[in-house]
């Protein structure tokens, strides 16, 4: 995302909020790993929901650690998709594993 010009950069920003209101800022493109987020942001050209207009999504049912992990995974996935290097392990804390799983299901990741 380094070589994007400024306006692109602005429109590319996405804010995600966890159930406790913690804010994460990331690139829209990264978030497209999740099918749910992608359609929320108008993966098609037609929908224009609140989320898309404000470039922010509030997840009322996702806790901060889980959301953080999810976002980590977005970057992980983007980095290693179509990469030829060996996949390093993606570290997951045992405590959140079930929640993470449910969240992944929710987000269609």
């Amino acid at each position, binding site marked *: 995302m380094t070589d994007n010009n400024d306006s692109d950069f602005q429109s590319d920003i996405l804010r995600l909020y966890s159930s406790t209101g913690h804010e994460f800022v990331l690139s829209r493109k990264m978030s497209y790993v999740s099918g*749910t987020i992608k359609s929320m942001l108008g993966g098609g050209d037609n*929908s224009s929901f609140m989320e898309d207009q404000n470039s922010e999504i*509030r997840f009322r049912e996702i806790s901060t650690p889980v959301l953080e992990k999810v976002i980590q995974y977005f970057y992980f996935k983007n980095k290693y998709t179509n990469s030829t290097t060996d996949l390093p392990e993606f570290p997951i804390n045992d405590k959140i594993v079930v929640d993470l799983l449910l969240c992944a299901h929710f987000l269609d990741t």
Partner: protein
Amino acid sequence: MSTKPTKFLVKYSSYPHNNDPNTTTTAWKLLEEAIKTIHLKNASSLSFEELYRNAYNMVLHKNGEMLYNNLKNLVNGHLKEVAKQVEIANDEAFLNELNTSWSEHKTSMLMVRDILMYMDRTYVDQAKLPTVYDMGLNLFRDNVVHSPYIKDRLLNTLLDLIQKERNGEIIDRILIKNITQMLIDLGVNSKIVYEEDFETPFLAKTASYYQVESQQFISSCSCPDYMKKVEICLKEELERVSHYLDSSSEPKVKDVTEKQLISNHMKTLINMENSGLISMLQEDKIEDLKRMYNLFGRVSDGLNYMKEVISNHIREIGKEIVMDEEKTKEQTTFFQSLLDLKDKYDRLHKEAFYNDKQFQHSLFRAFEYFINLNPKSPEYISLFIDEKLKKGLKGVSEEEVDVLLDKILMLFRFIQEKDVFEKYYKQHLAKRLLLGRSVSDDAERNMIAKLKTECGYQFTSKLEGMFTDMRLSVDTMAGFKNYIQTLQKPMSFDLNVNVLTTGFWPTQSASNCILPREILHCCEAFKAYYLSNHNGRLLIWQTNMGTAEIKASFPSKTHELQVSTYQMVILLLFNESPKLTFKEISEQTGIPPVDLKRNLMALTSAKNKVLDKETKDAKEAPNKNIEESDVFFFNTKFKSKLFRVKIMSVVQKETPVEATETRQKVDEDRKHQIEASIVRIMKARKTMDHSNLISEVIKQLQSRFVPNPIIVKKRIESLIEREYLERSKQDRKQYIYMA
């Protein structure tokens, strides 16, 4: 970390486990409101996350079915409203209204689909229902497009618009394009809706439209004009398809229009008087022919029919030329007209029919057909070549000669009885060579080379032998002259002998004449010389083919006469007596009466009257013909501007007797060839059954002539008699080769 949600069964514990009907109803209420909002195009006030989460939970708590059905009812109800809106729109706004509601519906269904994505992924998938979006399409189709007030109206409006365009009005193509696209989309992965609701009636309409149109055109236009119109119509229809119909309709529309415009009127077009196919051919209308070829090529059988008509036409013309007595008398014009015909059709074929192989084939067949109609064609071809090589090629460049010969050869190819041609060609070539009449040696050789590539070595070996003989004779004569000089016995005249190999040359019955003593003496000298070089050969003098130059002293002037050997012998008689009867001449020269008459005719002809004659029946007007009772005397009043006088021999027209002779000779030759071919085949195969053998023989001999199976059978029988072959004892139809 991609998960497979459907397979994962975890008790939902971290979130409040609220499966009671109240929560579900609340969730649906929320969604219902949201969808209504979406229908009002107010989606921006909605939170996707909230809706998604609610739908997610509903499905997760096994309320997918309820959600799906509720959604269906909701959309259904909404679309009924939409349909009413569309229905009340007036005619002009109708399509627009429909189009707008369609695109709105599409948008809202996409959004609904997105919020209910989870249901699509799990419940719909498991229950094997149409996905939310497809359900939306189906509902739209049933409620709006298929609503009784809309369906027919839609179709009629579309057809009306297209009709308008056909009549030259400008219509909103993009609108129609959208509508047809809608019909295609509504088919959900198939084009059934498009095909049933629109395409089929459209094609029917198109057909009836062009049926009427074409009737009108054809009754008012000439064939070329009609074809031009058809071209335009076809182009328009195709454009129409590409502008606003589905591409799958293209072949169908093409089919329908072509059928109406071309197939149904093919015969009328071709047979149209004054402008149909035949008159196009006659008038060389290449553009029109090309157009016709292109149009007819589109429909099945079109070209076949066209081909047939052309071929029949050529046959008619050809037949006329070939069978026309007047024309066949003049071989040159006869052939020239054939060549012209061939040229013309070759050109048409190339320029109008794109060198279509099938057309070429049918052209060839047609030529073959009529050329072989006249049994004299082989003779005429040979005569034509003779004519060309004797005179026609003076002052013509080598390339042109080549082109001409190629053309002749093309016609030659059509001839089935090539052996008959060979016979005649040999005769004519012999005459040209011996009388030195050939204009160009190169052209002669060129022709033979062409024949050789066409028919193979066998065909021309004898012809080439004739050339070799001529060359060897030149050498022989040079040697003979030296020999004479060594003899120190000068001769009173020059002798030039061509030694010809029997077999290469067309054998003519050696009708000898009594040569004057001094000449005989000279001949003896040559014979002695030749035999001393080539032992064991037999020399036969062919006096009927020679020429001579003699000096004749007339009272006015001394002339040099170029005459044939026979004429020379006759003239020399007049050295001794001034007046001779026909009988006397005949006795003293020994020339056969037929030849004698002909030569005397030449000598007494009005142009070069060397001899004068006295007819007994003096009352008759001066007659060219020679009677046996005539008396001849030396014409002292002979006058000519030229010093050298060439006595033209009366052209030897082939008499009926000679014709049948040639025919017999040809038949005799054929017998041998058939036998040779049978023996060759049997030698290789050892045993063979009757029908196979015959077909094989015909195949082998095809390049020379087409043998009659009955004759082949006779030859087989004759070979059995002579014990070359034997019938098999087990199977009478089998033949066995006897080594």
